[in-house]
């Protein structure tokens, strides 16, 4: 392994390749900030450039840089504007945006950068050590287990169900799932619930919904209730992480790097589920006082999804490099690039062309490191976005939500849907319905139904639930994740009642 590492280092540290990493990180970060352009589209755009370079290692290094840069850029817009452009960064806005509103935008971005770095680096170490072994684990998962894993992912809604909010969170999740059934399902090829409207044939767009649920209501709230003078809004203070905070998030980063990596290894699960699950798990593990902080600007709640999604991105390279199976849209595009460069990923890659395998791994380390070095000094300037005067900032936010929805679908009807849903979301927000579960339900709904249908077809019924121990185990975990918070709350209430009785 040491020999391989040195080969990789030698390749990755050449002047040309270092320049590639830096260029990739910068391009990725800046384009990734635009909502609507996720890592997948940016990598797709960069492929012609990468292929024309001719050198497979250099091309891969450039693309890895773009990939990591895009993920970090995506977190920036969810933290600063509550406008997540990629499904994987939705969970980062739950706590990142409240932090930015409290004037801690700089700190939030620093935590995001540091946890992304840690997640990516620890993920790369795990990839190095476990890649060959994990390739067989990835194949153990069948659609039944995927279905169960999505259910576990949905249990993240429990994290939003405060006292007396369980039914509301559940309604929102169910509506997210309902919205995911609009349009053609992959397994049936029949338009469903479109009401005959052609524009709905392909379903609602993810970006449209994310913007309508998060960014638009937030902008409307900013319009309705201008901040009084002297509030912390727009001011950037507390850039650094204090030792106490570093101490608090260190275990979170450790746990989520490993958990995120292993979820990322499973083809199809990927960064989105990793980030939601990371958020839910950390919330359940946190102490009572810290739990109350979640959703209101908890540093743990920001560090968990940020670490998990980067670790999962690294994990998704395991099936790509060892089996030649792309586990996500992004890795599928990378697979295309590799084949165009005359490299065929698969079990033989490590033996036939070790320099490429190791160069990719080393470029992950270097990409993460360069990203951290480039971005830490940039953070104060990025955070300055918030100090743009309100009269200009709000039209800009609205414009970017519109642009994100338009670029994704190239369809002006999408913009009307965006405004319509935005108004509905604002009403829901007035009535204190949590909006995040709706989006989680929508994102996971399609995958959930496809995997459920596939396992139903394979087992000719629901027998897969008890015939596959792993499925049953995952479903039990999901039940625990959902029931644990309400059990805790009930116990706490009983205890409080007992104290009151004793008086």
């Amino acid at each position, binding site marked *: 392994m040491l020999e391989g590492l040195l080969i990789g280092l030698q390749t990755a540290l050449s002047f040309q390749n270092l320049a590639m990493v830096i260029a990739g990180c910068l391009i990725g970060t800046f*384009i990734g900030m*635009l909502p609507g*352009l996720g890592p997948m589209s940016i990598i797709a*755009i960069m492929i012609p450039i990468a292929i024309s370079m001719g050198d497979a290692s250099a091309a891969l290094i450039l693309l890895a840089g773009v990939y990591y840069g895009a993920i970090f850029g995506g977190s920036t817009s969810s933290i600063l504007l509550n406008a997540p452009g990629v499904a994987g960064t939705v969970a980062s806005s739950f706590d990142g945006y409240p932090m930015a509103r409290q004037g801690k935008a700089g700190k939030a971005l620093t935590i995001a950068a540091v946890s992304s770095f840690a997640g990516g680096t620890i993920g790369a170490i795990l990839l190095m050590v476990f890649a060959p072994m994990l390739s067989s684990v990835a194949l153990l998962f069948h659609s039944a287990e995927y279905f169960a894993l999505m259910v576990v992912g949905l249990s993240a809604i429990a994290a939003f169900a*405060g*006292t*007396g*909010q*369980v*039914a*509301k969170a*559940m*309604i929102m999740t*169910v*509506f997210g*799932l*309902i919205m995911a*059934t609009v349009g053609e*399902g992959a397994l*049936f090829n029949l338009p*469903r*619930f479109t009401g005959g409207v052609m524009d709905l044939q392909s379903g609602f767009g993810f970006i449209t919904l994310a913007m309508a649920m998060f960014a638009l209501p937030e902008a*409307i*709230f900013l*319009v*309705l*209730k*201008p901040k009084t003078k002297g509030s912390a809004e727009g001011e950037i203070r507390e850039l650094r992480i204090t030792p106490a905070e570093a101490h608090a998030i260190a275990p979170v980063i450790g746990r989520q790097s490993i958990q995120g990596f292993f979820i990322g290894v499973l083809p199809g699960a990927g960064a989105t589920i990793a980030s939601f699950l990371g958020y839910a798990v950390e919330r359940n593990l946190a102490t009572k006082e810290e739990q109350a902080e979640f959703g209101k600007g908890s540093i743990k709640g920001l560090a968990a999804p940020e670490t998990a999604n980067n670790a999962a991105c690294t994990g998704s390279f395991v099936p790509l490099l060892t089996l030649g199976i792309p586990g996500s849209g992004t890795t599928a595009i990378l697979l295309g690039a590799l084949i165009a460069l005359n490299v065929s990923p698969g079990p033989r890659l490590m033996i036939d062309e070790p320099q490429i395998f190791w160069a990719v791994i080393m470029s992950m380390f270097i990409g993460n490191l360069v990203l951290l070095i480039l971005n830490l000094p940039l953070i104060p300037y990025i955070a300055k976005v918030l100090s743009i005067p*309100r*009269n*200009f900032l*709000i*039209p*800009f936010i*609205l*414009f970017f939500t*519109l*642009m994100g929805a*338009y*670029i994704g679908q*190239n369809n*002006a009807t999408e*913009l*009307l849907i*965006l*405004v319509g849903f*935005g*108004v509905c979301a604002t*009403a829901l927000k*007035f*009535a*204190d*319905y949590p909006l995040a579960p709706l989006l989680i339900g929508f994102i996971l709904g399609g995958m959930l*139904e496809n995997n*459920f*249908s596939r396992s*139903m*077809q394979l087992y*000719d*019924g629901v027998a897969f639930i008890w015939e596959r121990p792993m499925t049953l185990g995952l479903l039990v975990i999901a039940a625990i994740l959902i029931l644990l918070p309400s059990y805790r709350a009930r116990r706490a209430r009983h205890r409080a009642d007992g104290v009151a009785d004793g008086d």
Partner: protein
Amino acid sequence: MALDRWIALILLGLCLAYGYTAWFAMDAGLAPFMKRAPIWPSTFPKVLSILGTIACLIILMGIEKSDVKEAEIDYRRLHEYKLGQAVLLLLLMVAYAICLRPVGFIISTISFLFLGAFILGERKWLLMFSVAVVTTLIVWYLVQQVLGIYMRPLPGILGD
């Protein structure tokens, strides 16, 4: 009745309509060979409609007691906030959506950013105009030239 229960009522109506489609209307068009499959396109929606209806009823009947929290904005006193500005901005977004194709990206976007700032009370005309023009041109250059996503820059009558 509080707003959250009114919303639950509306959502219940949606759930029932969805459930009606799933249980009674959808399966009619199913091809005969698909009827032999263990799962139909309507299976999953059927489950969802039941779950949704139960959850809506729980809120509607007030079974679950929730703590009254201080909301960020009290919707009962909505008129005390800058409601006019918000509504105008939403209308502006609708106008933008309608105009984007026929009028072209550049003119619609410049007007959108300019009018947006105007609605919010900005009156530094020159600054507003230059910010709008510069942003529009940068975004257009980025999207059209760098990323290669086509957007019609000028009004349709001037050609593509």
